[in-house]
């Protein structure tokens, strides 16, 4: 273990590259660093101190390469840099980095190795290090998997420290002062006599200064920003209508576009009659794209109207036309041939359950839309020499490569400008909208085209959350859970998603069992098996990915067994739990909710627990029966992320994750009929509304060691906690989401 740690430390080397007129510094992890992407556009006299900081004669800019899709990523990343650089994040500029391999996301590899995240032993850590190499090779500048904070926690602070010390060295040289008598504060180096030298005024000299790479990070006890409640850098803009999103892009001479895609996602357009549409007001061009047709017009509304007027002949869906076919494919996947993984197999489950199962049940979870409130959109300006793309994306490198493949240009000639996104939840890991916009823009070279999906086109072509089915059995004895056997069948999310990027994904797909095989319980006979169903509708990562379904399956089966054993849901989970931080979050929600206290008639409480993305999260949900249906009244939620970087955002993500998990468990489903998604807008695809929102009490723990993100972990425990609460209140076990199939909810 010691050795693995040493290697990890040493690979965090800080280096520098000489460039025309200056020098750039970077935090590199591998021996051969990538070229620094910030060198390309560097003006004279500017010093790009690290890939994360740029200081010119008139501006300090913090570069925050992870996309902001509403999760506060820019603020958190800026805070980490500023903590060491001694700038006020509100007083300096922030921007997303251009797409470049130098911004690969090392934390993603944590989720790609077959070790439980609680396993920080030598073998597991080494495997994560090895996985880093392919991650880097793919240049995964990806925002996802709750990795923004773990990925940047050290890199960004180190970047800030290198920049600060190099600026001090530059000031020392200019003013003939010993470095150790200089201080920094408020974007300035402070000389011994109190003179303030703005960082900007030192940019030129810093460019000529040998980088100071031997920096010691500040002790957490001295932090002024990290861990403190601070104002998000975007909060004023977002409260006054001034925040520009991708959909607000304006470029000179810009045209607007809409699209019609085959309702059977991925199938072809066989023919079309656009004569009516062509004659409509404002229409400039009708352009076929793979699987559909686009309309370019002088405003969005006219483009959307014209797109509706096109008569299309669509090819049938490559997946089952109706839901029975999808469920049947899952039901038929629980076979040895389709077994994808059995990473947990303790004791002899077959022998223990042979004719002796106390519980034998099936669970189901539907397809779900991500449906961020900002519909997908992209602005593209194509010319034979250069293509510019403005879009809110979590995968700028994929966007660049795929657009280049369409235009036939070098990737270097495709310039991606990442825009703030109105939510994502995984939706902007897909880039079909960019491909469509690129095809459209090529029809009008030199003119920018903004493609905006209608809500119906967006929801009808979602790349939804996976559909999944689970079969669970178990046995109890002497008031205890003694045998647990869970099989999960779903199509491979990763194969579907990476397949669209032409990236092979050999080996088992850990997402098929994530949130189930890796749970921190010690049950004598304990088995979790993943079955890879055939590809059905195209699916994609949805907030918390595999754990979004598997947390429900795993925890509900456990709850059913605990009830069969006649044990207390909290006590028995604690007795079985083998991981201290997980026990701590369970104990926390027990204490917060006053678990075990008397309840009124018609009230019920359920516990849900899931460890996902390395974060244990527990919830207690309280429901009340009213004359008109069930009311979700209160939720207590606790999670341990190692260290809370931004407490305001931590609370927001916890509450938002609970709302997300509960709302979709109550109401959400995408279903297919005749190969098309039946829910095309928010009237039929339902999630939580304000009137249904319970009181949500949040607690963060900081004992788990490794720092983790919080975007996804609150989602998986919400659905089982609600199902378990409904059982406690009504005696009815809900094994299929959404629950409003069987019970009514009131706001």
């Amino acid at each position, binding site marked *: 273990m010691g050795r693995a740690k040493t290697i990890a430390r040493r690979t965090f080397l800080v280096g520098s590259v000489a460039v025309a007129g200056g020098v750039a510094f970077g935090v590199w992890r591998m021996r051969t660093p990538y070229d620094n992407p910030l060198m390309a556009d560097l003006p004279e006299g500017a010093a790009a101190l690290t890939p994360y900081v740029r200081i010119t004669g008139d501006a300090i800019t913090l570069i925050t390469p992870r996309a902001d*899709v*509403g*999760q*506060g990523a820019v603020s958190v990343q800026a805070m980490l840099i500023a903590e060491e650089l001694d700038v006020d994040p509100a007083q300096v500029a922030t921007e997303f980095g251009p797409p470049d391999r130098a911004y690969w996301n090392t934390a993603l590899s944590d989720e790609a190795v077959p070790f439980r995240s609680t396993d920080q032993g030598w073998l597991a850590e080494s495997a994560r290090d090895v996985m880093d190499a392919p991650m880097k090779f793919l240049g995964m500048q990806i925002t996802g998997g709750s990795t923004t904070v773990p990925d940047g926690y050290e890199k960004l602070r180190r970047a800030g420290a290198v920049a600060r010390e190099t600026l001090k060295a530059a000031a020392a040289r200019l003013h003939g002062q010993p470095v150790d008598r200089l201080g920094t504060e408020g974007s300035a180096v402070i000389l011994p006599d109190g003179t303030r030298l703005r960082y900007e005024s030192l940019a030129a000299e810093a460019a000529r200064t040998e980088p100071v790479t031997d920096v010691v990070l500040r002790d957490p006890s001295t932090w002024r920003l990290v861990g403190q409640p601070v*104002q*998000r850098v*975007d*909060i*004023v*803009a*977002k*409260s*006054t*209508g*001034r*925040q*520009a*999103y991708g*959909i*607000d892009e*304006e470029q000179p001479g810009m045209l*607007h576009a809409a699209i019609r895609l085959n309702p059977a996602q991925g199938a072809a357009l066989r023919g079309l009659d656009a004569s009516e549409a062509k004659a409509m*007001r404002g229409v400039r061009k009708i352009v076929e794209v793979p699987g559909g047709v686009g309309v370019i017009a002088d*405003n*969005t*509304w006219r483009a959307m109207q014209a797109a509706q007027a096109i008569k299309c002949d669509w090819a049938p869906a490559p997946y089952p036309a109706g839901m029975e076919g999808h469920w049947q494919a899952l039901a038929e996947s629980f076979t040895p041939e389709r077994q994808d993984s059995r990473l947990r197999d303790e004791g002899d489950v077959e022998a223990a359950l042979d004719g002796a199962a106390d519980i034998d049940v099936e669970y189901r979870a539907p397809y779900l839309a991500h*449906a*961020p*409130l*900002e*519909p997908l959109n992209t602005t593209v300006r194509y010319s034979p020499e250069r293509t510019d793309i403005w879009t809110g994306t979590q995968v700028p490198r994929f966007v660049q490569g795929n657009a280049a493949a369409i235009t036939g240009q070098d990737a270097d000639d495709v310039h991606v400008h990442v825009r703030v*996104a*109105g*939510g*994502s*939840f995984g939706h902007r890991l897909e880039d079909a909208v960019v491909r469509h916009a690129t095809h459209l823009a090529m029809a009008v070279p030199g003119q920018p085209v903004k493609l*905006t999906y*209608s*809500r119906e086109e967006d929801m009808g072509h979602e790349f939804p959350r996976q559909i999944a089915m689970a079969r669970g059995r178990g046995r109890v004895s002497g008031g205890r859970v003694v045998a647990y056997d869970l099989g999960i069948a779903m199509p491979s999310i990763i194969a579907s998603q990476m397949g669209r990027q032409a990236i092979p994904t050999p080996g088992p797909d850990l997402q098929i069992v994530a949130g189930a095989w890796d749970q921190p319980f010690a049950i004598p006979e304990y088995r979790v098996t993943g079955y890879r169903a055939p590809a059905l509708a195209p699916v994609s990562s949805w907030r918390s990915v595999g754990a979004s379904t598997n947390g429900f399956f795993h925890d509900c089966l456990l709850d059913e067994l605990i009830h069969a054993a006649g044990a207390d849901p909290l006590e028995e989970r604690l007795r079985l739990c083998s991981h201290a931080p997980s026990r701590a979050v369970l104990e926390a929600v027990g204490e917060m909710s006053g678990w075990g206290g008397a309840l009124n008639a018609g009230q019920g409480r359920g516990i849900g627990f899931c460890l996902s993305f390395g974060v244990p999260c527990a919830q207690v949900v309280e429901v009340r029966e009213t004359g008109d249906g069930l009311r979700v009244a209160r939720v207590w939620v606790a999670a341990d992320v190692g260290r809370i970087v931004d407490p*305001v955002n931590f609370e*927001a*993500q916890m*509450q*938002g*994750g*609970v*709302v*997300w998990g509960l*709302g979709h468990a109550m109401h959400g489903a995408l279903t297919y009929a005749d190969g098309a998604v039946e829910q095309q*807008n*928010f*009237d039929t695809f339902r*999630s939580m*509304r*304000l*009137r249904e*929102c319970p*009181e*949500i009490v949040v607690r963060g723990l900081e004992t788990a060691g490794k720092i983790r993100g919080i975007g996804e972990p609150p989602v998986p425990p919400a659905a089982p906690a609600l199902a378990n609460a409904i059982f406690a209140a009504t005696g009815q076990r809900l094994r299929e989401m959404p629950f409003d199939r069987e019970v009514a909810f009131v*706001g």
Partner: protein
Amino acid sequence: MRLTVNGTEHTLDDLEPEMPLLWALRDVLGVHGPKYGCGIAECGACTVHIDGQAVRSCQVPVGDVWGDVTTIEGLGTPGAPHPVQAAWIEAQVAQCGYCQSGQIMQAASLLAEVPEPSDAEIDDAMSGNLCRCGTYPRIRAAVKAAARAMREGT
């Protein structure tokens, strides 16, 4: 056609009267605060005021606009925010922020009519505004804080 938006009068002669106000604002006048989210009155992201009353601008044909239009940009500014905006900033409501223009316009209209709304009145008024990020707990708190501030005239 004449349209007054945030105190400025515009003449829109070359526009179909049936074009939704939302798209006239966004694509013709370049007023981007009101957002497109659903186009069918299900999300509230497009909410603006007409003569002080909250309406879904995706549902109002531009030719039918019956009074002065105020968008989030005209409600207040970063330097001089409306009390509802100030409460939203103080409570740090926004996550992605995309729904918040509509949420704020809806709340401002509620508080103009009902200065001291009950929890049920807040639920009723605000439940047509969808927030996919789940900022509802902070929205509730901010509406109450804004109501207090407006009553106290701060």
